[in-house]
């Protein structure tokens, strides 16, 4: 099996590591760097960690936040959910599995509904706020399947007015849209490196200075005793560098919308009223297209794309292995004919028009061949 000549259009699941980052990792991987050591190599490790924190801080305007490095966003979110004994946790129905399935035994979990356009329903959120103050609200900044940008700032504000805490899953937003933590004002933020051309296996939890919580992983006194374990230096350096590059290239990212919109126009012409685009009536990530075809299962589509060397996915890749109906589509109240047929095409700034044209060609051939109950 080889990945040569494949067209990768699944950048919301993971991204290739930037060449300069690979070079940097290559360089420091040779050194035995343990940031807890008292010799000069230990001090050098700490310099690298501080530099990475600064790069993350600059991308997110996170000067009022502490940063602890984790193995990824899943761990960051688990740390928040299990780190305080919340009586209530409010999430939305469109959260990523790392949030959606994180359910501490002693907390009552409630779900905010989502509107048909893919945006979290604020009116419904207000109804779910408990009377007491010991509650956490956790919603995402951008949805991983539709790319829809969520009203995190408003949710944070309402949460704080009711004296709760707000956790924001910013994994898909990071490096794709400007994220200003001073403006959004969350209490906790989970981010991940491998979605922005950094390495897999590294993420971070940001929390407002002064907040306290119980660690998820106990051990040595690394990271102010909030997260034990030797620090993953190559990962940390790679993550910082990825944030630095993302900040420089943030403007390029929004330009992908042109190609994505072209793709959607063409698909619309081919499939007419038998295709819908989820979340296209509101603001969404420039690179994400989630479409669904009436009565055409995503499994059938995926097999066809794979045979033609195109890599896309049916929504999130993080569900434990089975391709099934998307929870996000159900939450958006999409009509039954469209529930099984969703495919996510996610682009990168490097995606070329010829790649998209090839996708359209394969789509067209397959669509016209497919014996489905079209309207």
């Amino acid at each position, binding site marked *: 099996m080889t990945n040569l000549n494949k067209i990768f259009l699944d950048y919301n699941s993971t991204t290739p590591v930037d060449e300069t980052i*690979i070079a940097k990792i290559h360089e420091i991987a040779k050194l035995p760097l343990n940031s807890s050591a008292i010799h000069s190599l230990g001090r050098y490790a700490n310099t690298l960690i501080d530099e990475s924190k600064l790069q993350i801080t600059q991308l997110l305007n996170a000067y009022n936040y502490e940063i602890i490095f984790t193995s990824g966003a899943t761990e960051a979110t688990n740390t928040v959910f299990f780190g305080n004994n919340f009586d209530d946790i409010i999430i939305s129905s469109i959260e990523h*599995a790392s949030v959606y399935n994180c359910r501490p035994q002693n907390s009552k979990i409630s779900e905010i509904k989502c509107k048909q356009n893919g945006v979290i329903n604020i009116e419904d959120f207000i109804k779910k706020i408990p009377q007491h103050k010991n509650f956490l609200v956790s919603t995402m900044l951008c949805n991983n399947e539709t790319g829809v940008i969520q009203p995190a700032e408003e949710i944070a504000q309402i949460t704080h007015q009711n004296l709760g805490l707000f956790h924001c899953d910013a994994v898909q937003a990071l490096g794709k849209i400007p994220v200003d933590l001073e403006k959004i004002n969350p209490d906790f933020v989970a981010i991940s490196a491998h979605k922005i051309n950094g390495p897999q296996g590294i993420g971070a939890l940001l929390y407002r200075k002064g907040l306290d919580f119980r660690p998820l992983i106990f051990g*040595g006194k690394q990271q102010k005793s909030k997260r034990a374990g030797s620090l993953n230096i190559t990962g940390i350096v790679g993550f910082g560098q990825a944030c630095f590059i993302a900040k420089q290239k943030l403007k390029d990212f929004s330009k992908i919308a042109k190609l994505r919109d072209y793709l959607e126009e063409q698909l619309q012409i081919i499939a007419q009223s038998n295709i819908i685009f989820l979340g296209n009536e509101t603001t969404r990530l420039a690179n994400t297209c989630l479409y669904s075809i009436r009565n055409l299962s995503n499994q059938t589509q995926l097999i066809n794309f794979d045979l033609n060397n195109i890599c896309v996915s049916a929504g999130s890749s993080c569900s434990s292995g089975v391709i099934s109906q998307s929870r996000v589509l159900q939450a958006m109240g999409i009509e039954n004919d469209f529930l099984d047929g969703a495919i996510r095409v996610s682009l990168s700034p490097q995606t070329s028009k010829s790649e998209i044209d090839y996708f359209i060609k394969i789509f067209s051939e397959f669509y016209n061949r497919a014996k489905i109950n079209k309207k």
Partner: protein
Amino acid sequence: MTLKLPIYMDYQSTTPIDPRVIDKMIEVMKNDYGNPHSRSHSFGWKAEEIVEIARRQVAKLINADEKEIFFTSGATESNNIAIKGVAKFYENSQKNHIITLETEHKCVINSCRDLEQDGFVVSYLPVQKNGLVDLNLLEKSITPQTSIISIMSVNNEIGVIQPLEEIGKLCRQKGVFFHTDCAQAFGKIPLDVEKMNIDLMSISGHKIYGPKGIGALYIRRKPRVRIKSIFSGGGQERGIRSGTVPTQLVAGLGLASEIAFNEMSQDNIRITKLSKKFYDALTALTHVYLNGDKDHRYAGNLNFSFAGIEGESMIMAIKDLAVSSGSACTSSSLEPSYVLHALGVDDELAHTSIRFGFGRFTTEEEIDFAIDLIAKKVTKLREMSPLWDMMQEGIDLKSINWKSH
């Protein structure tokens, strides 16, 4: 050839990544950047294939089945999952007792402390003067409420190897799960989960010339050990450990395991030879004491106390050697080692203890340089030290009533 300074002698804290492992990781990042959980295309499948090859490589090194290996972010996380996971799962069957040693790594001790807050009872057993577990005491400490015994294989500070086979046998007899923290043992000494009756084992990547940020947990399938996960999310690693499995790190750990499988015996012959040379030279300086049992140890770890020398002056004097006093996780705090304290080493000697580590890349030239440097500095520091004068005059330092002024 000139030596590159400082000479790295802190192999217990971390190891440089083997160049072959780096090459593998770079190759994976360049060519196979898929998310191993993507089920719909070849990038995902290829990444998954890489992960599964690594799982077999790790399993092979400890004679386990690949289905018994779960990837984590490192040994610290593995220890947390193993101890808290077992304790919390079997809590319902009236088992609320855990046994561990006073000399365990901080992450084992602190996982236990965390459980105490939730109402569990923990016995922290003292060790013998040589750092080894007292098997009679261990047997006596087991109660019908004991769910798990956690005893490390090789101690990180003093290098002693615990009698794993005996502990495993006892645990099996008594129906108690045996967890062992193998961060310092995996890839360094032969381990066999069947022969040693090990039920859970924590594994680290960066202690065996692999990358940081990756480790594994071995969980026995027959008889089955069950775990209450401390992580929720996408349900990866069969629900034991959610979160995207990092392909290039796992590939690195896998290859590091394979290299260890093939080269462990050669590495150990070389390291043992260097270690013996170093041991002989240092003990010849007189009043230099090895901490921990002389024979039941991993040769790549020698922890010495230097009598007649004051506290931190030794570390300062041998700046050209990258060494550590105690474990890296606690050394930056400069508190006296709780491990040496548990061995009954008195405070003065504990304060002058230094851990010297030897590894795959240690050369004889480096050892010669280190021996020479230490000998010179010890002599010089002792000449300056009133403590040394008193010792030479036969005054028992403990009999002195120090006055503050």
